[in-house]
């Protein structure tokens, strides 16, 4: 018989669009992919700020943050997100998804982004990336 008191660990991830960027088709697809992988997706949607994402990650005790970026602002916004998390002393891995030129991927990874997923990433790769960066 299963012990009913067995704790159940579920990955909880905050998904958001940071800044002025209205392209949310991709992030909605990702939300669905992660849901179907059994994760709990806290969906913040459009026009979030670093402050609103930090607050959500704290209140939701998120295991990871996924940011979707299609506005070529990733080299500015991603470091800003990391700085905001640092300032809040919140140790949550950040994954970037969207249009990121190959040349910028290393820069983002070097800055402390945990993973970068491009527009061609298959569902299994998206799920594996999240599982990999989550330290439980």
């Amino acid at each position, binding site marked *: 018989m299963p012990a009913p008191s067995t704790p159940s660990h*579920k990955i909880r991830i905050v998904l958001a669009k940071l800044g002025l960027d209205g392209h949310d088709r991709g992030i909605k697809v990702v939300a669905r992919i992660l849901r179907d992988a059994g994760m709990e997706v806290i969906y913040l949607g459009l026009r979030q700020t670093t402050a609103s994402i930090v607050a959500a990650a704290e209140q939701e005790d998120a295991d990871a943050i996924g940011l979707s970026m299609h506005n070529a602002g990733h080299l500015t916004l991603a470091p800003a997100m990391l700085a905001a998390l640092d300032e809040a002393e919140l140790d949550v891995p950040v994954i970037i998804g969207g249009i990121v030129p190959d040349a910028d991927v290393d820069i983002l990874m070097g800055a402390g982004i945990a993973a970068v997923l491009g527009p061609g990433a298959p569902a299994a790769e998206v799920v594996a990336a999240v599982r990999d960066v989550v330290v439980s």
Partner: protein
Amino acid sequence: MSIRNLPVEKLVARALEGNRRAVGRLLTLIERGGADADEIADLTHRRTGGAHIVGITGAPGAGKSTLTGQLTRLLPELGLAPAVLAVDPSSPLTGGAILGDRIRMDDIAGEGTFIRSVATRGHAGGLALSVPGCVRIFDAAGFDPVIIETVGVGQVEVDVVGAADTTVVVVNPGWGDAVQANKAGLLEVADIFVINKADRPGASGTRRDLELMLDLSHVSGLEDDSGYRPPILMTTATKGKGVAAVWDSVQAHREHLTASGQLSTRRVDRLRYEITNRVEARLHAEAAAAIDGVELSDDLSPIRLATQITDQLLRD
């Protein structure tokens, strides 16, 4: 040291001092269940009772999140520190969930509001099994009121009544008719009715249907028993219209509960309800495991098999 590695006792101590990250972590541990969750309940159980617990329920898309968001903007202005538990459904197939209530709240929520999204994780009835435990943490940490927003409900998911002091039922213009209004279930349990999207056609008709339904409670004597008639309020939550009146009604209901002595009755009922849900969940899990192991047979009807399994379970 990351707060994630703190022992439960220290986490609770930090949460009681108002540390929001500790509150967030405790909520996770409560949701996970197990020994940590049991210990947290032990440590917070005696520190509760201060917060007024408001349930907000209604059909999907009725405007529960938007109304809740507007309340969380208003309440800090009144000097209150609200917390929200926003419940959304888990997939019965994968266990995953998209928790999207924050979309309608974050922009409007006032300073200091704590919003937590909760997945039902297999629990029916409109809430998650962990909700009373999560409410206890908010209550012990000094949040007041605690607002519980249920999943979008149909007619029978009335768990929220067992979890809240005041239940607000949100409906929309054009919803149902006078017969719908008198069906048993959700509408019977409302302490306050809100007709949201009241700028749309049909709002006054919906109001009339609800008033007539309440008149019949008067005729049947139900209203005399409780000494209370639920008010019907009109809101346009997207614009914040009518929201202050909703809060006034919540307070009026609270005063009624206190004056009539029903507050303590409701709270005793609430504890019993939590116990019932816990016992049922455990029995359910044990029954499911027992049923999994049963061989079906042409000679025994499903009813006979069910009786055998039940008898066996009750003997164990």
